[in-house]
């Protein structure tokens, strides 16, 4: 007699990298036990009318812990992630202190033991993210760190970046770059263009991003090491990445939902909720981001979820910190705006980023017998309205307040545990 299934996700359409089919998914011991018709279990999650997909994987989450617990914690951020359909997030290392040593990696992993999703800390490339000395990447890699970045800033020193790429290649890890030439971006608070000129806000040109993308592509050519480009936002950057890929270079790129849904015109009311780095760009850049995603030139959609306490965003625009929430809105925006078949949206949010993050053995599917049961169940036609007060994040800085979205996460399952049921976090 077969052992009893713990959980069945019933009546949905299973979508993963291998295709799509109507099936129930049974789960036992945290893993997928069976895929088939009319399966049964003690607990049943209704998935009728829904897509059952591998849990989403965010390459770019700021959990703020340690150091900025008033903005977010591993607990609150992971709850937001689970509600957004994510079963894994890469935690950016611009914490206080920065994740630049085995000790801080261990601390974040310890905090993440009770999180509502898996948390994979990224390590800093340089000590303190100061851009001067290589961090102890090997000791962090031994703890499982697979991505390294100074996110929040780019590595400015070309010689140091070259050495970091070479060193990373030896460890089999990937560097991820926040592309922003500090000299061109100095003193800037939004995209430089017609709007910044009208509003009297110092702007950074698109080229502040593009020149670093182009430099790093040449360093990849030189070193043979892979690189991942974080949150690309300009037409020029995406063109450069497409050309590098055509040359066969090991480059990957992510884009953030706010860069394909919002423009610099949003800054017209001086609301610092719309302040973010890289900044919101022009209509032409938004179109270029969407085109690049549709053309398959972008590997992942990543949220750049960046919580900031409300009082910090009530400051003058040029004094407020950059960043916006993203975990709970990314999937719906991607389904709605990109005009892509559903399976391609999940590819960009789940199995492709899982490979870049080095977590494809646990996350991103495929949904098959024996695989870890990290899943999300999404109703693609259900509508909802973004209400900052009802987000799970400790902060409120969503740029989509009041916006109606289509595409609702019903359930999220982490290693067999339903951490979200009917849109409610279970812990």
């Amino acid at each position, binding site marked *: 007699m077969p052992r009893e299934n713990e959980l069945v996700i019933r009546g949905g359409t299973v979508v993963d990298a291998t295709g799509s089919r109507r099936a129930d998914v049974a789960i036992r011991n945290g893993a997928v036990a069976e895929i088939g018709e009319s399966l049964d279990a003690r607990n049943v999650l209704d998935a009728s009318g829904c897509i059952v997909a591998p849990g989403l994987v965010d390459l770019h989450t700021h959990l703020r812990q340690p150091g900025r617990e008033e903005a977010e914690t591993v607990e609150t951020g992971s709850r937001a992630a689970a509600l957004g359909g994510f079963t894994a997030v890469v935690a950016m290392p611009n914490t206080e202190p920065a994740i630049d040593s085995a000790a801080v990696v261990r601390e974040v992993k310890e905090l993440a033991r009770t999180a509502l999703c898996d948390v994979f800390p990224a390590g800093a490339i340089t000590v303190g993210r100061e851009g001067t000395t290589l961090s102890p990447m090997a000791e962090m890699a031994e703890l499982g760190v697979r991505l390294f970045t100074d996110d929040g800033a780019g590595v400015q020193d070309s010689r140091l970046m070259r050495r970091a790429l070479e060193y990373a290649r030896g460890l089999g890890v990937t560097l991820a770059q926040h592309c922003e030439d500090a000299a061109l971006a100095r003193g800037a608070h939004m995209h430089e263009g*017609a709007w910044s000129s009208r509003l009297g806000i110092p702007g950074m040109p698109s080229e502040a991003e593009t020149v670093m993308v182009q430099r790093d592509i040449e360093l990849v050519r030189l070193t043979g090491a892979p690189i991942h480009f974080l949150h690309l936002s300009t037409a020029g950057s995406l063109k450069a990445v497409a050309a590098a890929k055509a040359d066969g270079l090991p480059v990957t790129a992510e884009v953030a939902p706010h860069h394909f849904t919002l423009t610099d015109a949003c800054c017209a009311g001086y609301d610092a909720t719309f302040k973010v780095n890289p900044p919101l760009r022009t209509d032409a850049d938004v179109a270029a981001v969407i085109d690049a995603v549709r053309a398959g030139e972008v590997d992942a959609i990543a949220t750049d979820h960046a919580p900031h306490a409300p009082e910090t965003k009530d400051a003058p625009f040029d004094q407020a910190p950059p960043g916006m929430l993203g975990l709970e809105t990314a999937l719906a925006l991607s389904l709605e705006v990109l005009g892509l078949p559903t399976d391609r949206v999940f590819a960009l949010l789940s199995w492709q980023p899982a490979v870049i993050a080095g977590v494809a053995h646990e996350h991103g599917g495929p949904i098959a017998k024996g695989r870890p049961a990290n899943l999300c169940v999404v109703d693609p036609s259900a509508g909802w309205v973004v209400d900052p007060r009802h987000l799970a994040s400790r902060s409120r800085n969503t740029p989509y307040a009041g916006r109606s979205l289509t595409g609702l996460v019903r359930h999220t399952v982490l290693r067999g545990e339903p951490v979200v049921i009917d849109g409610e976090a279970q812990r």
Partner: protein
Amino acid sequence: MKHLLQIADLGADGIDEVLRVADTFAEVNRRAIPKVQALRGKTVVSLFFEDSTRTRLSFETAARRLGADVLTFAAGSSSVKKGESLRDTVQTIDALGADAFVVRHASSGVPHQVSTWTEGSVVNAGDGWHEHPTQALLDAYTIRERLGGFAGRRIAIVGDIRHSRVARSNVAAFSALGAEVTLVAPPTLMPPSTEGWPAELSHNLEAVLPKMDVVYLLRVQRERATEALFPSLREYTAHFGLTAARAAMLPAGALIMHPGPMNRGVEIAADVADAENAVITQQVANGLSVRMAVLYLLLGSGVDLAA
């Protein structure tokens, strides 16, 4: 009109109305006792996060001459230094019963933000690089007073346009009133984009001067040279300073204007600043009447001016 945050809030008709009402107050200001009670019982708060004694005194005098009570908030000696947020500062003062906030801040957009946090009216007294609408209104008043009107008039605004709130307001006001505006500066001192700006651009002061009815000079700050926007003040003056020789290229009767404070010998030669067609002190004098008009139109609707 609830707030005056930028010139676009007024439009051509609104500007005309302010200038008309300012005429009335100019008459009041010539009286032996230059005071009316149009805003009696109203409270005007001057909220200056950036030092500007001349603008603050102009606004506060305007409010007092209208009979309003004036509260002065000086950021230097206040809660801002104790770490209070901008929003908390505004809401605290709002709780004292402010009818209008006159806001000056080094950051663009602060008057907009303040207007979302208070029930009172907000007057922008200069925000960052963005706008300084009452400066533009007093400039427009001065030009109209001297030249009679704006239709077909040519006005050059010369200098650090990029960082100038005065330039942004003046371009909007002068063009709305029918003037043709030319911005004159090296490309580094122009805004990164002038898409949609109703103005011509020039990098050659001497070429435009002979056609101008007004040349409006902006203050050039010494630190711009350290930002590599131009090599030195000396080189700036050599190409964009209004020297006596260049002033002589202006048509007869053309006005020379400056929002102050002037850098004599940099953007304007000392003898040019004191020339007969320089109306710089008149600009200051007109500021009072114009600011009275703005406060009156925001707060005093329905009050009989003759009272």
